[in-house]
């Protein structure tokens, strides 16, 4: 289905002719094996971090700013959910079971796996040209006109064009870069800043954030931003064509064998 605007405005073709003219039967995968493997390991780790992080938060769903905070100090805000401990007054008449043992184990293990996988991915960015080719916006795309065109088509929930199955559009590139180089480093930093042993050796990690409770609050918000990214990301997959995008990230080939031949 061709989009109306494609006739009027130049499409934000991120990878110009090469992408559009990828021969159907080419063996070159849409995503390299390394990208596909690191993508799914990160997916699993992130889901584990989300679930375990939520479990940890419900043991004390109050947030503070500064160095210290507890039920005797004013809260910055409190999430209106039941808690898994008696300490916090939630207004609910019950206390959920304590799940912090396995949650903390899982949280830190998944964090290690996510960090090591992310490190492998970022190092590979330098050697494979993936960063320049697929993530950094093309010079021609770096204009307000091109940005607003992409944004407008997103806001209309328009189905992406064919060539976007082979190359990221501008908005995708910017959001992936933001997730890789801003959100993930921030969530790692704010997480480490909560560790009493880590900050004993590297006190600046927590002092720069304004205190341990500030780090906890920021960790919560960065995690929310990552969750928001996940929801939009999955939503876009459905919009763009779930099976072709999933095939591209699993086998590397967006098209089925039949479609290719």
């Amino acid at each position, binding site marked *: 289905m061709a989009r109306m605007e494609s006739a009027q405005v130049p499409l934000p073709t991120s990878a110009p002719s090469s992408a559009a003219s990828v021969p159907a039967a080419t063996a070159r995968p849409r995503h390299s094996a390394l990208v596909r493997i690191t993508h799914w390991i990160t997916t699993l780790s992130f889901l584990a971090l989300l679930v375990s992080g939520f479990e940890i938060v419900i043991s*004390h769903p109050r947030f503070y700013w500064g*160095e210290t905070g*507890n039920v005797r*100090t004013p809260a910055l805000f409190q999430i209106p959910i039941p808690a898994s401990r008696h300490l916090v007054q939630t207004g609910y008449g019950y206390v959920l079971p304590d799940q912090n*043992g396995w949650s903390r184990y899982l949280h830190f293990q998944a*964090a*290690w796996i996510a960090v090591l996988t992310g490190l492998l991915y970022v190092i590979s960015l330098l050697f494979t040209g993936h960063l320049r080719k697929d993530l950094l916006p093309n010079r021609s795309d770096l204009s307000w006109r091109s940005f607003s065109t992409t944004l407008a088509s997103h806001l209309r929930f328009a189905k992406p064009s064919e060539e976007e199955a082979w190359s990221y559009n501008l908005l995708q590139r910017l959001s992936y870069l933001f997730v890789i180089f801003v959100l993930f480093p921030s969530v790692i930093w704010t997480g480490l800043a909560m560790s*009493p042993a880590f900050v004993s050796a590297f006190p600046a990690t927590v002092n720069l954030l304004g205190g341990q*409770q500030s780090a906890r609050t920021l960790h919560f918000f960065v995690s929310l931003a990552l969750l928001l990214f996940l929801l939009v990301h999955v939503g876009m997959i459905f919009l763009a064509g779930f099976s072709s995008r999933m095939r591209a990230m699993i086998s590397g080939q967006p098209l089925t064998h039949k479609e290719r031949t």
Partner: protein
Amino acid sequence: MTNPASRKLSRRKLIVGGLAATAGVAGLGVAARIAQKYGLVPPDHGGIYGLGETLTYASQRLLTRHSLAREFPKSQISQPPFANEVEPPSDQFKRFQAGHFADWRLDVDGMVARPTSFSLDQLKSYPSQSQITMLQCEEGWSYIAEWIGVPLSHVLDVVGALPQARYVFYFSIEPDTWETIDMADALHPQTLLTYGMNGDELPVGHGGPLRLRVPRQVGYKNVKFINHLTVSDNLKGFGKGLGSASADAGYAWYAGI
């Protein structure tokens, strides 16, 4: 596959791959032995969360063995200091409390040259140390207080902990409340047998008369009402052999994170 060259290649690949795998396994074995030798392997290194725990503990021991927990100015002491809820005290504890803890003893045994039973006065006669540090609970809340006590390392010196010691058990007078730390934390200058807080006696709500402060680990490692220490080279013989009541309940043994 009929091409002999390709078969040769695949055989070579097989050999190279096999050698690489063998070298990898051998390398891992050597790494594990070195890690064991330098005390980089936590007791809960097995099981499904063993990978994460081992990476955390090994990194901490490599990066932070001697680093000091952050200390704060007096102005940052939490007012009022927050005391977490404790179980209602046992009759035994109430008897000590009625006598103002004059009869409270700290028994130290295990791998020590001179097993000793200390009174609180004896502990207070040693050079005292005070620190303004944060106590943070694994749940997420925290407070800052001034903690006054005698460094655990001094007491271990007095009793003559043997060189093969690897862990120190510390037990609360209350049932099922005990932990262990490794020697890196036991000998750390900020690990205090604490009897005072904010210029006063340590309140019962905060673990008085005696609490072990391990400021580089979260709250549950900071056990209240300490009356017994055991020095050991292993974690067997208590609870499930995992080295702490919290570990028996499914929590990580190392809580410096």
